[in-house]
């Protein structure tokens, strides 16, 4: 239904703000370059204050970049005001117009485009059907639940058939269950409409569930960009590994090397690892071990002592000490497995292929 899918390109974008207290300038976003393909769903993910909203607002036109140029479908748009940009934003607070009913909220942008009444009516009806709100046209916005308001906000943006849809934490005001169902909904609608979407969140599971591509931001800088799998399995830094999912970090020197395989010394124990092409003998390697990639056993790579053992239903949660390192392990489906108790000695066992080396 979209007229034309548009990509978004950010070229060396920076945004400088002034700290209101110290009056010092600082980079809220620094030298960020992104290439968002037409029709794809891209998520900006990162901790609070890392510049996600700022980036999104620069694309929408509410803020102007201090360095670099933003392109929408190949056109530079730096000097365009928000109302002249082919973007539509879904706000965290929904920002519905409280003095209009649902129909008028959704029709607002269409009326500004001087469409005739019949067209507007058809379009609004169709879009409300798409988001599952048919028949509620006459309701005022305060007579809606949070999820329904969210749908109106989405419909209002979609109906304009924008080149790009922008979302700023659209689900953070909803309860956990609704969040899950709404994100599936958003993904479905985006794919049906085939619209390019840029989505801001700090919820990593949300990002993984809906994105074609995730961009992890840290203090105004892009830390890593890639598909959910790439980012989860091949994080480029401890920050990324820790931010997306849980991770254990084990550090030690590389002892020997054979092609892309090698041996790392972790607290006096030799551990086989793979894919260490970039390291030389003696370099410190950081092994990233996901809690679900390891189990406890009577024999394995790393000797350890159990300091916490907790039954969680679908898995047994362990905290163990390997030398001075705390390692967290989630052992799934524990029903018929041996359970280790606090104080027990055991081994951490894992497949070397599941260890990522930094």
């Amino acid at each position: 239904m979209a007229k034309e899918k548009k990509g978004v390109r950010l070229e060396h974008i920076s945004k400088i703000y002034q700290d209101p207290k110290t009056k010092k300038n600082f980079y809220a976003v620094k030298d960020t370059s992104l290439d968002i393909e037409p029709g794809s769903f891209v998520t900006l993910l990162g901790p609070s204050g890392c510049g996600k909203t700022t980036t999104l607002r620069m694309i929408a036109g509410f803020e102007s970049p201090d360095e670099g140029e933003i392109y929408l479908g190949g056109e530079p748009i730096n000097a365009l005001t928000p109302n002249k940009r082919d973007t539509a934003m879904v706000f965290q607070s929904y920002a519905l117009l409280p003095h209009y009913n649902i129909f008028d909220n959704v029709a607002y942008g269409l009326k500004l485009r001087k469409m005739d009444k019949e067209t507007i009516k058809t379009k609004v009806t169709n879009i409300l059907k798409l988001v599952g709100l048919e028949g509620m046209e006459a309701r005022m916005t305060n007579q809606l639940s949070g999820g329904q308001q969210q749908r109106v906000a989405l419909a209002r943006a979609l109906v304009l058939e924008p080149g790009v849809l922008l979302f700023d934490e659209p689900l953070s005001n909803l309860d956990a269950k609704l969040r899950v169902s709404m994100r599936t909904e958003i993904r479905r609608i985006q794919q049906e409409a085939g619209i390019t979407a840029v989505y801001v969140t700090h919820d990593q599971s949300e990002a993984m569930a809906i994105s074609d591509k995730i961009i992890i931001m840290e203090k105004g800088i892009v830390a890593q960009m890639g598909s959910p799998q790439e980012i989860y399995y091949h994080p480029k830094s401890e920050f990324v590994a820790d931010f997306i999912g849980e991770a254990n970090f084990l550090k030690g020197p590389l002892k020997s090397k054979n092609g892309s395989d090698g041996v790392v010394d972790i607290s006096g124990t030799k551990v086989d690892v793979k894919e260490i092409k970039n390291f030389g003998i003696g370099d410190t390697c950081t092994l990233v071990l996901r809690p679900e990639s390891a189990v406890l056993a009577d024999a394995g790579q790393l000797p350890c002592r159990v300091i916490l053992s907790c039954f969680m239903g679908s898995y047994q949660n362990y905290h163990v000490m390997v030398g001075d390192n705390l390692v967290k392990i989630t052992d799934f489906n524990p029903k018929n497995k041996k359970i280790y108790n606090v104080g027990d000695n055991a081994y951490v066992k894992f497949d070397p292929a599941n260890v990522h080396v930094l």
Partner: protein
Amino acid sequence: MAKNQSASLDRKKFFADPIMVTTIVVLIAFLTLFILYPLAILLVDSFVTDQGIGFSVFRRIMKMSNFRRAITNTLKVGFLVGIASALIGLLFAYVEVYVKLKTRFMEGLFKVVSMLPVVSPPFVLSLSMIMLFGKAGIITRFLLHIYDNNVYGFWGIAIVQTLTFFPVCYMMMRGLLKNIDPSLEEAARDMGATRWKVFMTVTLPLILPGLGNAFLVTFIESIADFANPMIIGGSYDTLATTIYLQITGAYDKEGASAMAVVLLGITLLMFIVQKYYLEAKSTATLSGKASRQRMLIEDRSVTIPLTILCSLLAIFVVMMYICVPFGAMFKTWGYDFHLTTKWFKQVFTKYKGLKAFKDSFVLSLVASPITALLSMIISYLVVKRKFKAKGFIEAVSMLAMAVPGTVLGIGYIRGFSAGVFRTGFLQGLYGTGAILVIVFIVRSLPTGTRSGISALRQIDKSIEESAYDMGADSLTVFMTVTLPLIKDSFLSGLVTAFVRSITAISAIILLVTPQYLLITVQINEFAEKGAYGIACAFASILIIITYSAVLLMNLVIKYFGTSRNYREE
């Protein structure tokens, strides 16, 4: 690290919006021409003479003993009125917020007291003061048999101004007290402090800056007040009346300008202290919303004396206002208490009352929508937009609050009677209804702007952004989103501007030409001549008009206002 690119992009985006640019330019021109320029011309007048620049005019006026006396008089009255109003205001606020008085009668009384000064012309209390306590006053002459009581002078002004201004302090203090977290006081009570001790050690320190704020606001109102000193001051002249006499009696334009500069200097200084020091401080110590309901004081040894004290004061105030229509219904006040309609009749038959009401009404009716719209536009620009001249617009529209009407009036005389900078430009304006309308606008703009700003601050900025994002330009956003969302504030601004305009006198009395008969000017004239019956008749009709306007507004807000439909409480 420089913000050059964003600055230039923001500028480009700004100029891509011609309507907004035009609005801002027009606004700046208006504020400069009708607020800054008249004040600037006063400075020029008082410093520049034929002999060059210097203090010669000031030296001359400082030699006048009546001017020196006027300064001390004004400050003395202002000081006393400020303190008395702040304390009485505090008493009323405390009783309302802390003391359990669940009687309908008391609630109604408090509401009336806070409402009366809003709807009544400024000098009504002076009239009733004279009629109750003057030589022919009912209370002095007939109840107490004092035949030569002199209400004119210091005490007359002080009492009348206190009764006029304390309701404002009451509203201010009420807002502050309501924001005190009750648990602070309960904690102190828990540790064994008496109520009095809690008040002195917890409550009072918390609201002390607010009390200072209320004092200064009243102080400024008092020294800027023209009408009351005019009617009840007798030979006790204040700065405002001295300036008036200097220009209308002595035709000393330079002298009056210099005096106006002195008055402006005092109010401006007070205003700056109040605005930038006390106002911020008065709310800073308070946490915001009270976390829960306060346990009201039920102890009879506290409630009974406080209730009686407040009731007496309130009843006294109400009585003073009621006195005015009665004044218009007796044949000869103080001597012949036969009911008559002759005063009301004379208003229309003998004294061109119809024309006076029509002129006042029409001019105010023209001024109020412009004022309301302008103040909403200014608030929108100040709260929601970023641009260079924003500080200027905000500062000048607030500055107007500190300018006494008399000073503005002199400034307009000096600034426009021979055209702008005596060039003849815009000279046609002087003496017309248009300049009166402009004065009405300037006088009511700050109040409207303040209420607009606080209304707009409560609106989530993303609501307007979303409209902007969907393709609306700033005019459309303002008309379809902002204005509907602050409809209540707009409507009340409309009525406030109307009421303030139709009851205005201080600046207007200097600028009005015989072509226009304004009610307030008429009342002032008759009151000065001692024709109280006719003055009261005019005043009563005026109060009926203003009160109806307020009632109408409340009705409109109730049925068409925004709050009923969708504002979440």
